[in-house]
């Protein structure tokens, strides 16, 4: 249990709550329920929560799966600096946002779910978790010929095999440099004795 990042679950819960708030708000506003203006608030709050929670934070260990198209919102959320990094802020923000929606039946579910998400964020914050944006790493271009330090030390024409020395580290390098780097489909079939 020690490696659980509660913030990841809180993020899913908050995103779901945002969607529930939006749905409840639309029902209340479209149906012109009593006190439907709470519904209108709920739609706005829901959209805000969804936008804030859409970019998933980076996991501490291992690779994180990004949500589709989240890099645009990541930039925006990053702009807020410590306000978006710190989970205490998120916990209290969500708690505050959820309260007005609690006055309308259509959105009360959203309130409950968002309040729970806020609670999980609080737990995450007490364990020192933080939101780190997922940034794409610049592609490393393979350095062709980067390992060739010096010209081949024993170029052809070479003396016959018997006179050749045993393979040493330097020869390994020179041979290796001729082979292309990186895993790839082998263009030259390597035969074996079976089949």
């Amino acid at each position, binding site marked *: *249990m*020690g*490696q*659980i*990042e*509660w913030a*990841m*679950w809180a993020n*899913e*819960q908050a*995103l*779901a*709550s945002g969607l*529930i708030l939006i*749905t*409840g708000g639309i*029902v*209340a506003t479209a*149906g012109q*329920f*009593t006190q439907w203006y709470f519904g209108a608030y709920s739609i706005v709050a829901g959209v805000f929560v969804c936008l804030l929670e859409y970019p*998933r934070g980076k*996991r501490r260990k*291992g690779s994180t*799966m990004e949500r589709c198209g989240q890099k645009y919102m990541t930039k925006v959320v990053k702009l807020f600096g410590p306000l978006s990094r710190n989970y205490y802020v998120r916990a209290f923000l969500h708690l505050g946002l959820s309260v007005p929606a609690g*006055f*309308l*039946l*259509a959105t*009360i*579910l959203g309130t*409950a*779910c968002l309040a*729970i998400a806020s609670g999980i964020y609080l737990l995450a914050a007490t364990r020192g978790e933080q939101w780190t944006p997922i940034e794409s790493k610049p592609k490393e271009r393979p350095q062709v010929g980067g*390992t060739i330090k010096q010209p081949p030390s024993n170029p052809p024409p070479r003396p016959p095999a018997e006179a050749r020395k045993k*393979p040493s580290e330097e020869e*390994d*390098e020179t*041979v*290796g*440099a001729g*082979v292309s*780097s990186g*895993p*790839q*489909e*082998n263009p030259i*079939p*390597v035969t*074996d*004795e*079976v*089949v």
Partner: protein
Amino acid sequence: MANWLLNHWLSVLVLVMWLGLNVFLFVNAFLLYEKGDKYYYTREILGSALAWARASARCLNFNSMLILFPMCRNLLSFLRGTCSFCRRTLRKQLDHNLTFHKLVAYMICLHTAIHIVAHLFNFERYDRSRQSTDGSLASVLSSLSHQEKEGDSWLNPMQTTNMTVIYMTLTSIPGFTGVIITIVLVLMVTSSMEFIRRSYFEVFWYTHHIFIIYFIGLGIHGIGGIVRGQTEESIKENHPYRCAEFFEKWDDDFHCKSPQFEGNSAESWKWILAPGVLYFFERILRLYRSQQQVMITKVVMHPSKVLELQMIKRGFSMEVGQYIFVNCPSISYLEWHPFTLTSAPEEDFFSIHVRAAGDWTENLIKAFEQQHSPIPKIEVDGPFGTASEDVFQYEVAMLIGAGIGVTPFASILKSIWYKFRHADHNLKTQTIYFYWICRETGAFAWFNDLLASLEQEMEESGKVGFLNFRLFLTGWDNNIAGHAALNFDKATDILTGLKHKTFFGRPMWDKEFSTIATIHPKSVVGVFLCGPQALEKCLRKCCHQYSSLDPRKTQFYFNKENF
């Protein structure tokens, strides 16, 4: 296309039946509440929202009943066992239990949404008609309880004008239980998202157990009789078609008396009682089976942090490709983790290979590494899963394992070795091509020994062509390649010590398939994969491409095993 249908016809049938039943139940309930005379007056206040709420409720009951069945894995194993003479496809269907469980869960979520939205409208309309003073039929109906001295003739649950919908919801049994079970459902769904499940399994596992609250809440959700329809006798005295227009004159001794209403009784419990009891027995059974003593006969620490445990348990019998759930009380009382069995059924023990891949596995490995403390106790439940006996049914088999997916093939290859040694007639296989694709062999050095001994065995019996390995190392670098190039002439491979040389890079499947099709022009070739989806797509394509149109010639059948 035909090939796909042949492999999947049962899945399609089950899905079609399930969807069909859902549609049928929905439409049936919808028409009952939308057109039935009994609910005419109720519809006066609520409109169509009543029918939508009730129809989705019926589907919710149906799906809540279904959702527990796929999780009774002991029952499924039993069914699978008794169906040993059944066709393979039937038994494989039982393996898709998790997929079915998820589908049913999605349907529950959909119907929950419909049900809640419909009820929001219902409550709002009840509220409005209670408040309204326009003397319409709806408002007359809503004020019914005040007029009748006989109890229970009310229609509108909101009895006083100053009761709010929120108060009504939170103080009535249906409202309160509804809110609770919906919150529970949302929590279960968010913690079961694939990302959470794969990365933080414990969150998913423990949270998912709140389904108990869901089922109890669902059972009591219908108590309270808030959904009300006219009683039988009242319809005789006051038939809506006759009397609805003259509602102002109901109490004046006209042909129509005031209508009487009764609430529908709770019916959810009827749907969920049986699966609930079944699942309860399933858990008891799991507990009982796990209490059976497991004796650990051998512990081997392989390189790259792989732990092999060889165990014996009374009454344990397995087949190739099955898996077990393992629990270690000293690490965690409640967590059960699945592991593929790596031993063959012919051996007198069963074994698993555990790789450090998370909290629990790391703790397990650490616990067994301690030289001086006693060996931790292990509990085992299983085995589960469809046996992959299909492998033995094909004349030619292509077994492809990628990375950790090679583990179930350990069991299969060992079993083939035993069957081969004892000249087992069940073994139809004449030739096996085994493809092992991984980034670095270090993590599976334990598998190497198995392959080496198999290779030797084949040589000694003089049947060298029976088992052909192709090992592909995808994460190679210049050093390794250079080394290999220099030792090209050596008889054994430098990396694995096997006679079969290791290839570098990914396999060229086109070439492999065409070679095999050429060598075995008249055979049926079974292709078995345990690996990533991208590879699955590629292999399926190749199977279609290289299966000849003539059924007498080479046919490739793809089997994706979800071990």
